[in-house]
Protein backbone atom coordinates (compact mmCIF):
# COMPACT_ATOMS: atom_id res chain seq x y z
CA UNK A 1 0.00 0.00 0.00
CA UNK A 2 1.31 3.44 -0.90
CA UNK A 3 2.35 5.57 2.05
CA UNK A 4 0.13 8.57 2.71
CA UNK A 5 1.80 11.91 2.02
CA UNK A 6 1.97 14.29 4.96
CA UNK A 7 -0.38 17.20 4.44
CA UNK A 8 0.29 20.82 5.29
CA UNK A 9 -2.31 23.60 5.19
CA UNK A 10 -0.86 27.04 4.43
CA UNK A 11 -3.01 29.89 5.75
CA UNK A 12 -1.80 33.17 4.26
CA UNK A 13 -3.52 35.93 2.30
CA UNK A 14 -0.50 36.63 0.06
CA UNK A 15 -0.64 34.44 -3.01
CA UNK A 16 3.11 34.76 -3.61
CA UNK A 17 3.86 33.55 -0.10
CA UNK A 18 1.57 30.54 -0.53
CA UNK A 19 3.18 29.81 -3.87
CA UNK A 20 6.66 30.08 -2.34
CA UNK A 21 5.89 27.71 0.54
CA UNK A 22 4.12 25.30 -1.79
CA UNK A 23 7.12 25.07 -4.09
CA UNK A 24 9.46 24.34 -1.19
CA UNK A 25 7.21 21.82 0.54
CA UNK A 26 6.14 19.94 -2.58
CA UNK A 27 9.80 19.52 -3.50
CA UNK A 28 10.12 17.68 -0.19
CA UNK A 29 7.10 15.47 -1.01
CA UNK A 30 4.60 17.14 1.31
CA UNK A 31 1.04 17.52 0.07
CA UNK A 32 0.01 21.18 0.29
CA UNK A 33 -3.37 22.86 0.69
CA UNK A 34 -4.00 26.59 0.83
CA UNK A 35 -6.39 28.94 2.58
CA UNK A 36 -6.49 32.72 2.21
CA UNK A 37 -7.58 33.49 5.76
CA UNK A 38 -8.64 31.91 9.03
CA UNK A 39 -12.25 31.44 8.01
CA UNK A 40 -11.35 29.53 4.88
CA UNK A 41 -8.88 27.46 6.90
CA UNK A 42 -11.57 26.48 9.41
CA UNK A 43 -13.80 25.33 6.54
CA UNK A 44 -10.98 23.26 5.05
CA UNK A 45 -10.24 21.67 8.40
CA UNK A 46 -13.81 20.41 8.61
CA UNK A 47 -13.34 18.47 5.39
CA UNK A 48 -9.82 17.15 5.82
CA UNK A 49 -7.49 17.73 8.74
CA UNK A 50 -3.84 18.28 7.78
CA UNK A 51 -0.78 17.07 9.68
CA UNK A 52 0.46 20.61 10.18
CA UNK A 53 -0.56 24.24 9.78
CA UNK A 54 1.53 27.17 8.60
CA UNK A 55 -0.27 30.34 9.64
CA UNK A 56 0.25 34.03 8.89
CA UNK A 57 -0.89 36.65 11.42
CA UNK A 58 -2.27 39.57 9.42
CA UNK A 59 -5.05 38.33 7.16
CA UNK A 60 -8.42 39.76 6.13
CA UNK A 61 -11.70 38.48 7.62
CA UNK A 62 -10.01 36.31 10.27
CA UNK A 63 -6.42 36.85 11.41
CA UNK A 64 -4.08 34.03 12.33
CA UNK A 65 -4.31 34.47 16.09
CA UNK A 66 -8.12 34.44 16.10
CA UNK A 67 -8.01 31.39 13.82
CA UNK A 68 -5.71 29.51 16.20
CA UNK A 69 -7.76 30.47 19.23
CA UNK A 70 -10.89 29.15 17.49
CA UNK A 71 -9.10 25.99 16.39
CA UNK A 72 -7.78 25.19 19.86
CA UNK A 73 -11.33 25.35 21.25
CA UNK A 74 -12.55 22.69 18.82
CA UNK A 75 -12.73 18.96 19.48
CA UNK A 76 -9.84 16.58 19.04
CA UNK A 77 -8.10 15.76 16.76
CA UNK A 78 -8.49 19.14 14.96
CA UNK A 79 -7.63 21.12 18.07
CA UNK A 80 -4.25 19.40 18.40
CA UNK A 81 -2.89 20.01 14.89
CA UNK A 82 0.55 21.57 15.29
CA UNK A 83 0.76 25.14 14.04
CA UNK A 84 3.78 27.09 12.92
CA UNK A 85 3.14 30.82 12.76
CA UNK A 86 5.24 32.69 10.20
CA UNK A 87 4.81 36.44 10.18
CA UNK A 88 6.54 39.69 9.35
CA UNK A 89 5.65 40.87 12.86
CA UNK A 90 8.80 40.46 14.90
CA UNK A 91 7.84 42.16 18.16
CA UNK A 92 7.91 40.29 21.48
CA UNK A 93 4.20 41.08 21.96
CA UNK A 94 3.37 39.48 18.58
CA UNK A 95 5.21 36.30 19.50
CA UNK A 96 3.57 36.21 22.93
CA UNK A 97 0.11 36.75 21.38
CA UNK A 98 0.68 33.91 18.91
CA UNK A 99 1.85 31.56 21.65
CA UNK A 100 -1.13 32.48 23.84
CA UNK A 101 -3.42 31.92 20.85
CA UNK A 102 -2.14 28.38 20.34
CA UNK A 103 0.91 28.60 18.08
CA UNK A 104 3.46 25.85 18.68
CA UNK A 105 6.29 27.92 17.24
CA UNK A 106 6.82 31.34 15.69
CA UNK A 107 9.16 32.30 12.88
CA UNK A 108 9.72 35.72 11.35
CA UNK A 109 9.59 36.19 7.57
CA UNK A 110 11.48 35.94 5.30
CA UNK A 111 12.31 32.27 5.44
CA UNK A 112 14.81 30.28 3.44
CA UNK A 113 14.08 26.86 1.92
CA UNK A 114 16.15 24.98 4.47
CA UNK A 115 14.49 26.56 7.52
CA UNK A 116 10.97 25.89 6.25
CA UNK A 117 11.66 22.25 5.35
CA UNK A 118 13.45 21.70 8.64
CA UNK A 119 10.48 22.97 10.66
CA UNK A 120 7.94 21.16 8.48
CA UNK A 121 9.77 17.88 9.03
CA UNK A 122 10.03 18.49 12.75
CA UNK A 123 6.34 19.39 13.12
CA UNK A 124 5.28 16.33 11.12
CA UNK A 125 7.48 14.02 13.17
CA UNK A 126 9.96 13.19 10.42
CA UNK A 127 13.64 12.59 11.04
CA UNK A 128 15.73 15.73 10.51
Amino acid at each position, binding site marked *: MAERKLRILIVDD*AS*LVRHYYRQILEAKCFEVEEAMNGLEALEKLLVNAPDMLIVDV*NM*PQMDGITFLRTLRRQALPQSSIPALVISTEAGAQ*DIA*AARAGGANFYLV*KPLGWDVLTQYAAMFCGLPA
Partner: protein
Amino acid sequence: MPLIKNTFHRPASSSPDPAAALTSVSPDERWAAARAAGDDPVNLAALAQVLARESDTRVREAIFTALARIATPESALAVLPYLRSDDANIRTGALDALRAMPEAVKAHLSQALADADADVRLLACDLIRNIRDEDAPRWLCEFLEIEHVANVCAAAVDVLAEIGDVQALPTLWRCAARFPNDPFLAFAIKVAADRLRANAPGSRV
Protein backbone atom coordinates in the same frame (compact mmCIF):
# COMPACT_ATOMS: atom_id res chain seq x y z
CA MET B 1 -50.80 40.19 13.33
CA PRO B 2 -48.88 38.47 16.15
CA LEU B 3 -50.88 36.85 18.93
CA ILE B 4 -48.47 38.01 21.59
CA LYS B 5 -47.48 41.58 21.96
CA ASN B 6 -43.78 41.98 21.31
CA THR B 7 -42.22 43.21 24.53
CA PHE B 8 -38.65 42.54 23.37
CA HIS B 9 -36.44 45.47 24.24
CA ARG B 10 -35.41 47.10 21.01
CA PRO B 11 -31.79 48.22 20.96
CA ALA B 12 -30.95 51.76 20.09
CA SER B 13 -31.10 51.26 16.33
CA SER B 14 -34.28 53.34 16.34
CA SER B 15 -32.68 56.00 18.50
CA PRO B 16 -32.78 59.47 16.94
CA ASP B 17 -29.20 60.14 18.08
CA PRO B 18 -26.82 57.24 17.40
CA ALA B 19 -23.86 59.38 18.44
CA ALA B 20 -25.19 59.61 21.99
CA ALA B 21 -26.04 55.89 22.11
CA LEU B 22 -22.44 55.02 21.18
CA THR B 23 -21.46 55.68 24.79
CA SER B 24 -24.21 53.51 26.31
CA VAL B 25 -23.13 51.02 28.98
CA SER B 26 -24.91 48.27 27.06
CA PRO B 27 -22.76 46.65 24.34
CA ASP B 28 -25.94 45.76 22.44
CA GLU B 29 -26.98 49.41 22.36
CA ARG B 30 -23.50 50.55 21.36
CA TRP B 31 -23.47 47.92 18.59
CA ALA B 32 -26.86 49.04 17.27
CA ALA B 33 -25.81 52.70 17.55
CA ALA B 34 -22.60 52.02 15.61
CA ARG B 35 -24.58 50.32 12.86
CA ALA B 36 -26.96 53.27 12.66
CA ALA B 37 -24.15 55.84 12.85
CA GLY B 38 -22.73 54.69 9.53
CA ASP B 39 -25.78 56.13 7.78
CA ASP B 40 -24.70 59.72 8.35
CA PRO B 41 -21.20 61.26 8.03
CA VAL B 42 -22.11 63.69 10.79
CA ASN B 43 -21.41 60.83 13.24
CA LEU B 44 -17.80 60.49 12.13
CA ALA B 45 -16.23 62.32 15.07
CA ALA B 46 -18.28 60.36 17.60
CA LEU B 47 -17.38 57.06 15.94
CA ALA B 48 -13.67 57.94 15.86
CA GLN B 49 -13.79 58.95 19.51
CA VAL B 50 -15.47 55.78 20.80
CA LEU B 51 -13.31 53.52 18.62
CA ALA B 52 -10.29 54.49 20.72
CA ARG B 53 -11.81 53.08 23.90
CA GLU B 54 -14.17 50.36 22.68
CA SER B 55 -13.21 46.96 24.10
CA ASP B 56 -16.10 44.84 22.81
CA THR B 57 -15.00 43.06 19.61
CA ARG B 58 -18.47 43.05 18.05
CA VAL B 59 -19.02 46.76 18.71
CA ARG B 60 -15.54 47.58 17.42
CA GLU B 61 -16.25 45.70 14.20
CA ALA B 62 -19.51 47.64 13.81
CA ILE B 63 -17.61 50.91 14.29
CA PHE B 64 -15.04 49.94 11.66
CA THR B 65 -17.89 49.03 9.31
CA ALA B 66 -19.66 52.34 9.98
CA LEU B 67 -16.47 54.29 9.24
CA ALA B 68 -16.04 52.29 6.03
CA ARG B 69 -19.60 53.09 5.02
CA ILE B 70 -18.99 56.80 5.58
CA ALA B 71 -15.94 56.35 3.34
CA THR B 72 -14.46 59.84 3.38
CA PRO B 73 -10.77 60.74 3.70
CA GLU B 74 -11.59 61.75 7.28
CA SER B 75 -13.06 58.35 8.14
CA ALA B 76 -10.03 56.63 6.56
CA LEU B 77 -7.81 58.85 8.69
CA ALA B 78 -9.72 57.73 11.80
CA VAL B 79 -9.03 54.08 10.97
CA LEU B 80 -5.40 54.29 9.80
CA PRO B 81 -3.78 54.49 13.29
CA TYR B 82 -5.22 51.06 14.13
CA LEU B 83 -2.95 49.45 11.55
CA ARG B 84 -0.22 49.76 14.18
CA SER B 85 -2.21 48.09 16.96
CA ASP B 86 -0.55 45.28 18.92
CA ASP B 87 -3.79 43.32 18.62
CA ALA B 88 -3.98 41.35 15.35
CA ASN B 89 -7.76 41.39 15.55
CA ILE B 90 -7.82 45.19 15.61
CA ARG B 91 -5.29 45.41 12.75
CA THR B 92 -7.46 43.06 10.71
CA GLY B 93 -10.57 45.11 11.43
CA ALA B 94 -8.79 48.30 10.41
CA LEU B 95 -7.37 46.74 7.26
CA ASP B 96 -10.74 45.32 6.21
CA ALA B 97 -12.35 48.73 6.75
CA LEU B 98 -9.66 50.53 4.75
CA ARG B 99 -9.91 47.97 1.95
CA ALA B 100 -13.61 48.74 1.75
CA MET B 101 -13.00 52.47 1.10
CA PRO B 102 -10.19 52.59 -1.49
CA GLU B 103 -11.04 56.07 -2.78
CA ALA B 104 -11.00 57.51 0.74
CA VAL B 105 -7.68 55.82 1.49
CA LYS B 106 -6.02 57.32 -1.57
CA ALA B 107 -5.61 60.70 0.12
CA HIS B 108 -3.45 59.17 2.87
CA LEU B 109 -1.47 56.61 0.91
CA SER B 110 1.72 58.60 0.45
CA GLN B 111 1.78 59.24 4.20
CA ALA B 112 1.20 55.57 5.02
CA LEU B 113 3.88 54.46 2.57
CA ALA B 114 6.34 56.81 4.28
CA ASP B 115 5.42 55.72 7.81
CA ALA B 116 8.31 54.95 10.16
CA ASP B 117 6.67 51.62 11.07
CA ALA B 118 7.53 48.94 8.48
CA ASP B 119 4.31 47.05 9.26
CA VAL B 120 2.23 50.11 8.35
CA ARG B 121 4.15 50.48 5.07
CA LEU B 122 3.58 46.79 4.34
CA LEU B 123 -0.16 47.06 4.96
CA ALA B 124 -0.28 50.28 2.91
CA CYS B 125 1.09 48.33 -0.07
CA ASP B 126 -1.75 45.89 0.34
CA LEU B 127 -4.26 48.75 0.29
CA ILE B 128 -3.05 49.83 -3.16
CA ARG B 129 -4.34 46.53 -4.54
CA ASN B 130 -7.93 47.79 -4.34
CA ILE B 131 -7.31 51.31 -5.61
CA ARG B 132 -8.40 51.79 -9.17
CA ASP B 133 -5.96 54.44 -10.36
CA GLU B 134 -3.76 54.32 -13.42
CA ASP B 135 -0.92 55.81 -11.36
CA ALA B 136 -1.00 53.02 -8.75
CA PRO B 137 1.76 50.93 -10.43
CA ARG B 138 3.95 54.05 -10.58
CA TRP B 139 3.43 54.68 -6.83
CA LEU B 140 4.58 51.14 -6.10
CA CYS B 141 7.61 51.44 -8.42
CA GLU B 142 8.70 54.68 -6.77
CA PHE B 143 8.20 53.06 -3.38
CA LEU B 144 10.23 49.98 -4.36
CA GLU B 145 13.16 52.15 -5.40
CA ILE B 146 13.59 53.46 -1.85
CA GLU B 147 12.10 50.87 0.53
CA HIS B 148 14.82 49.30 2.65
CA VAL B 149 12.96 46.41 4.33
CA ALA B 150 12.85 43.25 2.21
CA ASN B 151 9.50 42.07 3.60
CA VAL B 152 7.87 45.36 2.72
CA CYS B 153 9.36 45.19 -0.78
CA ALA B 154 7.91 41.68 -1.13
CA ALA B 155 4.45 43.00 -0.28
CA ALA B 156 4.83 45.75 -2.89
CA VAL B 157 6.06 43.24 -5.48
CA ASP B 158 3.05 41.02 -4.77
CA VAL B 159 0.66 43.89 -5.53
CA LEU B 160 2.70 45.12 -8.50
CA ALA B 161 2.44 41.65 -10.06
CA GLU B 162 -1.33 42.09 -10.03
CA ILE B 163 -1.76 45.68 -11.13
CA GLY B 164 1.48 46.51 -12.97
CA ASP B 165 2.83 45.96 -16.45
CA VAL B 166 6.22 45.34 -18.09
CA GLN B 167 7.28 48.94 -17.43
CA ALA B 168 7.82 47.83 -13.82
CA LEU B 169 10.47 45.26 -14.78
CA PRO B 170 13.55 47.54 -14.43
CA THR B 171 12.35 48.52 -10.94
CA LEU B 172 11.98 44.85 -10.03
CA TRP B 173 15.50 44.03 -11.23
CA ARG B 174 16.96 46.93 -9.26
CA CYS B 175 15.07 45.77 -6.17
CA ALA B 176 16.39 42.23 -6.60
CA ALA B 177 19.93 43.59 -6.90
CA ARG B 178 19.55 45.49 -3.62
CA PHE B 179 18.57 42.33 -1.70
CA PRO B 180 20.71 39.56 -3.19
CA ASN B 181 20.51 37.37 -0.08
CA ASP B 182 16.76 37.27 0.41
CA PRO B 183 15.37 34.03 -1.09
CA PHE B 184 11.71 34.94 -0.77
CA LEU B 185 12.09 38.36 -2.37
CA ALA B 186 14.09 36.81 -5.23
CA PHE B 187 11.30 34.28 -5.70
CA ALA B 188 8.59 36.97 -5.50
CA ILE B 189 10.35 39.14 -8.08
CA LYS B 190 10.84 36.24 -10.47
CA VAL B 191 7.16 35.23 -10.23
CA ALA B 192 6.04 38.86 -10.62
CA ALA B 193 8.29 39.40 -13.64
CA ASP B 194 7.04 36.20 -15.30
CA ARG B 195 3.48 37.30 -14.70
CA LEU B 196 3.99 40.82 -16.01
CA ARG B 197 5.67 39.47 -19.15
CA ALA B 198 2.88 36.92 -19.65
CA ASN B 199 0.28 39.68 -19.37
CA ALA B 200 2.08 41.97 -21.81
CA PRO B 201 0.19 42.65 -25.04
CA GLY B 202 1.31 40.26 -27.76
CA SER B 203 2.82 37.73 -25.36
CA ARG B 204 1.94 34.06 -25.78
CA VAL B 205 0.11 32.47 -22.88
